[in-house]
């Protein structure tokens, strides 16, 4: 793509951004909200996003009596001067043209270019300069292309991405799951972290759904990478997926904190939920099994607790035990500790997908995710502390990225500060555990947690409260708001935050055989042919 002039800067301020007067020969319709534009100042290139466009006129009478014929001389005469288009630009990055070190060249915007600074479209070189490229950096992963620049890759720095908790948002049907699958592939491919994925709807493990394909399904991580790198552990073993193990959770694995996280899902009052701490103190590790069998009246009297609340807790826990009977078992029935298997996998660097199968009700999902995550939290804290005290003897634990769907159920205001996920989002970065939050209602997630997310990948959101929530605490959010609201319903996302030097709207890569090939995936027939060829070469 050749460099192309768009117009000149005519107004601007550091707080409100720049105003571009479009050249008459530039068609307004060739521009899009969210497109890159570069204002070439005397020393710096100001990398900006187009956030808004407006039709203006110096001759208001022309608007009252518009030239009727689109090809008329009058319209040609008025176009571009008397009537013209203004575009609002939000500079996000200054690039020092004379600095050769790319890290030093990229600077936050602290000034503005002068009047009549020429503005042009970005080129492939510009995009590579800012976003890096897979060829030049082992940590960069191609996630898509900028708007209207389909052949130019935009890369995510996955090392920076995995350093902090991140979010993928978008309303239902906007390609959130595809995007998540692709980011997860990137994390596996670039070894940026070990994934623990709580796969509520069976989208990431063995296979996922694809409304666009004839079979209605697409390959999951396990098919692409094989059991040496990705394993699927399921709560609901069934013949149509190739799982690497079943998960059975003993009653004793449940802790009062898990019940606290389930309050809303099982309709428990806060008082009743807190009674679980009393019961744990009374019965010890086996409190869940004992609670199911206890005499409520007696225990309530002994503990000076409210009898009604205690009865409610017992009733709800019985229901929970019944709903989760498929995988939540009395201790005696659980032979293999799935928690240990998962921890072992993560330590070995094997990405693990927890498949829920039929057990995908919120209560079941939240409970399992809470139990497993809490264990990891304890273990990783412990190992990190040991590493910090004796770095020579104890290795740092690998970086774990925990993916949770329907994240607002874990991180909603009121419970986020009490559950393990709220803690991870806020502080566990230090212990090498981060979250990848996938959700369609970010406004339901506690603000404090949202503000801690390093990188946000947002597909279309049209609810104002969701848009505000996602952009809270982001500089220049006013401009990004209009960009976010104008995304296509599919395959487009606004990506901004820690893993990128500046916000960018990308057309995401399709998750298809071409993509799989770039990951090194071979179809079984190809794999067999390669094996035969290698074998033959061995004896040549």
């Amino acid at each position, binding site marked *: 793509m050749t460099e192309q002039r768009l117009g000149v800067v005519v107004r601007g301020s550091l707080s409100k951004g720049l105003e571009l007067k479009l050249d008459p020969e530039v068609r307004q319709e060739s521009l899009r909200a969210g497109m890159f534009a570069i204002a070439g100042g005397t020393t710096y290139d100001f990398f900006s996003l187009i956030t808004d466009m407006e039709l203006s006129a110096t001759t208001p009478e022309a608007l009252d009596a518009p030239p009727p014929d689109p090809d*008329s001389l*009058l319209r*040609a005469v008025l176009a*571009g001067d*008397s009537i013209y288009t203004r575009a609002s630009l939000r500079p996000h990055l200054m690039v020092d043209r004379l600095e050769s070190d790319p890290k030093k060249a990229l600077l936050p915007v602290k000034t503005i270019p002068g009047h009549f600074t020429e503005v042009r479209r970005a080129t492939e070189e510009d995009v590579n300069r800012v976003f890096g490229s897979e060829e030049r950096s082992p940590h960069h992963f191609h996630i898509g292309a900028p708007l209207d620049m389909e052949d130019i890759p935009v890369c995510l720095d996955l090392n920076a991405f995995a350093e902090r908790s991140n979010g993928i948002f978008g309303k239902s049907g906007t390609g959130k799951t595809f995007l998540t699958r692709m980011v997860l592939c990137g994390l596996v491919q670039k070894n940026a972290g070990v994934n623990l994925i709580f796969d509520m709807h069976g989208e990431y493990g063995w296979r996922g759904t694809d409304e666009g394909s004839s079979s209605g399904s697409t390959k999951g991580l396990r098919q692409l990478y094989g059991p040496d790198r990705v394993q699927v552990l399921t709560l609901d073993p069934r013949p149509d997926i190739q799982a690497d193990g079943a998960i059975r959770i003993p009653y004793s694995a449940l802790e009062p904190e898990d019940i606290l996280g389930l309050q809303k899902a099982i309709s428990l009052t806060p008082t009743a939920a807190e009674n679980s701490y009393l019961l744990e103190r009374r019965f010890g590790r086996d409190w869940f099994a004992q609670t199911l069998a206890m005499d409520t009246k007696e225990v309530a009297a002994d503990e000076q607790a409210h009898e009604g609340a205690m009865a409610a807790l017992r009733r709800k826990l019985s229901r929970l035990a019944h709903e989760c009977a498929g995988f939540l078992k009395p201790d005696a029935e659980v032979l293999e500790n799935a928690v240990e298997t998962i921890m072992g996998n993560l330590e070995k660097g094997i990405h693990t997908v927890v498949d829920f199968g039929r057990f995908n009700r919120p209560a079941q999902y939240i409970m399992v995710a809470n139990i497993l995550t809490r264990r990891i939290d304890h273990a990783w804290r412990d190992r990190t502390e040991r590493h910090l005290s004796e770095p020579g003897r104890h290795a740092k634990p690998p970086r774990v990225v925990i993916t949770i769907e329907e994240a607002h159920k874990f991180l909603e205001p009121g419970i986020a500060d009490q559950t393990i996920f709220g803690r991870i989002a806020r502080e566990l970065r230090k212990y090498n555990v981060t979250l990848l939050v996938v959700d369609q209602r970010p406004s339901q997630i506690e603000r404090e947690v949202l503000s801690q997310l390093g990188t946000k990948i947002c597909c279309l959101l049209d609810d104002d409260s969701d848009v505000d929530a996602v952009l809270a605490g982001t500089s220049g959010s006013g401009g990004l708001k209009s960009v976010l609201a104008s995304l296509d319903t599919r395959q487009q996302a606004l990506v901004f935050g820690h893993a990128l030097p500046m916000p960018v709207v990308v057309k995401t890569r399709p998750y298809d055989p071409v993509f799989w090939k770039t990951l090194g995936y071979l179809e079984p027939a190809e794999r067999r042919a390669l094996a035969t060829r290698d074998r033959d070469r061995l004896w040549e």
Partner: protein
Amino acid sequence: MSEPLGETIASDSQVLEVECHRLYGAPAFGSFVRAACPSGFCQFAVVTHVSTGPFDGNRVVQAHRLAPGELEERKPHLTSLLRTLFQARVIGYGDDNARVAGTPPLPARLHCFVYPATAEEIRAITASPSFLRPLVQTPNAPLEDLLVGAIRSAQEAWGSGERLVAWGKYLARLLHQDYVTLEGVMHRLSPAPMPAYSIAPAPSPSAHPRWEKPLPLSGNGKRGDRDPFED
């Protein structure tokens, strides 16, 4: 060099007043003319007003009720009592080496001969759209017609409409408070240009018979076309 149209009989920095050498021999309204000064320095102007009337301001012109053509034939002396004048707004100056749009340092001398500007001269003066500015400021002229006439003349010299949009854009800025005039000018310039309107100048006196054609006599006298004074 073409035949002179006339000569300046009054001038100032903005306006030339020219008396035509031939009755009705004025250039078209809105056309470009060149006043050639003896020093070789020329002034370029656009015709903004054309008039014909008696030399003697006290003389009253009366209707003769004669058919077209008949008047000149029967009263050839009238041509020597009348004159055609035109005014032109100065828009530029220069010599053979350089021609620029703008007001000349000094007004044209009186009795300078005035010629139609050549296509090359018009192109040089209208290369920048700023020639339109003095025209827009011309007082007492029908602005829309003047602009249409001048732009058509310039367009003819360029041989194409390539400059039309650039001139139009400049005009749009000059007329930003007079959109109606701009709209009118552009509307009239849009269709194929109208054929230039011109009045054939009066034939020179030598082309006419020296005498008036006799009026038909009443009665039975059979004088025919014979001159009565020859008797």
